[in-house]
C-alpha cells in the first residue's frame, strides 16, 4: 500500500484522544514516588516510602500470591480443558458444533454483573464463597470461552491435508495430534494461556462477589483499599503490576515470535 498523507486535524484529534486514553496509567507512575501521606497530584515531595510500605500490608501480599496461584491454576486447567474441546468442535465436527460453540462462548457475552450475582448465589448455597475452589470455578467459567475461541481459530488454520499426510505415513490419530497438530498450534496455545492468565489475574467483578474477608485476590484488595483510603499505596502496587504485565507480554511476544520463525 502506498503512503497516504493523514490529515493534520485527524492527527491532532487522535493525539488528544490517545493522551486521554493513557492518562490514568501514566499518572500512576509519578504518583507512586510520592512522599505525601495522602494522595495529591503533583506530590509535594518524592520518596520510595510507598514501595517500602507494601511490605507492611500482609493482606496485599497474601492476595498477590493467591492471585498468582489462582491465575496459574486457571491457565493450566483451562488449556487442558479447552484443547480437547476445540479439537472436538473443529476437527471431529459433531452434529450441532456451531450451536455448541455459541453456547460455550456465551459467558463472554453476558453482562459480568449478572454472571457475578448468579455465581454468588449458587456458590453461597454450595458453601464455596470465599474459597479457592469457588474462585477457581468462577475464573474458569469466564476464561474458558477466550481459550476455546483462540485455540479453535488456531486449529482451523492447520491444514487438514497435513494431518492426513501424517496418517497415511503411518501415524495413529494420537501421534498425528502430538507430532503434527500440537506443534502447529503452539502460538495459539501461548496466546490462549497468556490471555487466560491475565484475565484471571486482573478479574475484579466476579472476584469481588465471590471473595470474603478470609480470602481475596489482589484486584479485590486494591479495590477495597481505594474505596476506604486515598493514599499512593495502590499507585506503587500498580506500577509493579504494570511491570509484571509488561514482562508477561514480552515473554509471550518472544515465544510467539520464536514459534513463528519455528513454524516458517
Amino acid at each position, binding site marked *: 500500500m502506498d*503512503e497516504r498523507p493523514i490529515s493534520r486535524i485527524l492527527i491532532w484529534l487522535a493525539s488528544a484522544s490517545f493522551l486521554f486514553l493513557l492518562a*490514568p496509567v501514566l499518572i500512576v507512575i509519578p504518583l507512586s514516588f510520592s512522599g505525601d501521606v495522602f494522595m495529591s*497530584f503533583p506530590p509535594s515531595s518524592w520518596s520510595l516510602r510507598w514501595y517500602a510500605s507494601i511490605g507492611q500490608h500482609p493482606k496485599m501480599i497474601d492476595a498477590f500470591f493467591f492471585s498468582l496461584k489462582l491465575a496459574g491454576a486457571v491457565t493450566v486447567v483451562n488449556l487442558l480443558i479447552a484443547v480437547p*474441546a476445540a479439537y472436538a468442535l473443529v476437527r471431529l465436527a459433531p452434529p450441532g458444533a456451531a450451536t455448541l460453540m455459541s453456547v460455550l462462548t456465551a459467558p463472554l457475552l453476558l453482562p459480568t454483573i*449478572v454472571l457475578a450475582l*448468579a455465581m454468588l448465589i449458587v456458590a453461597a448455597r454450595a458453601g464455596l464463597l470465599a474459597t479457592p475452589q469457588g474462585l477457581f470455578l468462577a475464573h474458569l*467459567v469466564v476464561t474458558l470461552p477466550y481459550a476455546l475461541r483462540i485455540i479453535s481459530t488456531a486449529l482451523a488454520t492447520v491444514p487438514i491435508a497435513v494431518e492426513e499426510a501424517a496418517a497415511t505415513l503411518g501415524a495413529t490419530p494420537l501421534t498425528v495430534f502430538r507430532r503434527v497438530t500440537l506443534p502447529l498450534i503452539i502460538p495459539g496455545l501461548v496466546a490462549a494461556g497468556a490471555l487466560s492468565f491475565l484475565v484471571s489475574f486482573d478479574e*475484579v467483578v466476579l472476584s*469481588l462477589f465471590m471473595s470474603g474477608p478470609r480470602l481475596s485476590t489482589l484486584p479485590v484488595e486494591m479495590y477495597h483499599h481505594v474505596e476506604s483510603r486515598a493514599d499512593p499505596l*495502590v499507585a506503587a502496587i500498580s506500577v509493579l503490576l504494570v511491570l509484571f504485565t509488561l514482562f508477561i507480554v514480552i515473554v509471550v511476544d518472544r515465544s510467539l515470535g520464536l514459534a513463528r520463525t519455528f513454524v516458517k
Partner: protein
Amino acid sequence: MSAAATAQGPAQSRRGTTFTAATLLLPILLINAIGFMLPVANLAVISVSEIRSSGAMTGGWSIAKWTTVATDPFYWELLANTVRTSLIVTILTLVVSYPIALCLHRMNGAWKSILLVLVISPLLLSSVVRTYGWIAILSDRGLVNSALAALGAQEPFRLMFNLTGVMIGLTEILMPYMILALLAGFGRLDPRVEEAAATLGAPPYRVFWRVVLPLSLPGVALGSLLTFVLAISSFITPKLLGGGRVFLLATEVYDQAIVTLDWPLAATLSIIVLVVFGLALAVYTRILRQIG
C-alpha cells in the same frame, strides 16, 4: 465381508467420532452447565422467591420484589439514569475513539503496531488500577484541580463523586473495546474508494461525510453495542469515582447482594440489566439490517 457389514462401517465410525467428541467436550460442558447455565437459570428462580425480614428464604414464592421494583419510583429513576448514563458514555466513547481508529487504519508499518499495542495495553490492566489513575487526575487535590489552582482558581472543581467523574472514567475504560470494533469495521474501507471520491472532485471533508463515515457504520454499530453493554453492567468505576453518590443498576445489584443481602431484589435488578442488554441487542440487529 458382506456388503451389508461394509455399509455399516462408516455409520459406526461416525457414531464413534461423535462419541469421542462428546467425551472430549464433557469437561467444558460440565463447567458451562454448573458455572454458567445453572447459576443464570437460578437467578430467575431467586427473583420470585419469598424471603423473611431476616433475609432467609422461606422456600415459598413471591412476586413482591417485582412489584416493589415496578411501583417504587426510585427504581424507575435508577433504570432511566443507567440507560441515560450508558448512552452518553457510549456517544462520548465513540467520539474520542473514532479519530484514533481512523488514524490507525490509515497508518502502516511499525508505528501502527506500536500504537495498536498501546491501545490494547490498558485492557491488560485491572479496571481498579485505571480508575485509581482517574482519581489521581480528578480528585480535589488531583492533577486537574492542581493545575486550575496554579492558574488562580479559588475553589476546586467537583469532578469526582458525581456523574461527571463516572462518565469520564467509563469513557476511557471502554475506549479500547470501541477502537478495536471500529478498526474491524474499517476493514471494508478500501482506500481506492476514497481516492475515487477524491478524483471525482470531493474535498476531504465531503469524502469523510459521504464515503468514510457511511462505510464505517457497521463498525460504529458494533462498537456502540459493545460499549453500551459494558457500560450498563460496569460497577467498579461508578463505585470508586461515584463515591456512593452515583446510583446505577449495577451498583445497586452489588449493594443489594453484598451489603443488604437481599438476593431476590438483586436478582430482579440483574434480570432488568439482562432485559436492557437484550433490547440493545435487538436495536443493534435492526440497525445492522438497515445499514445493510
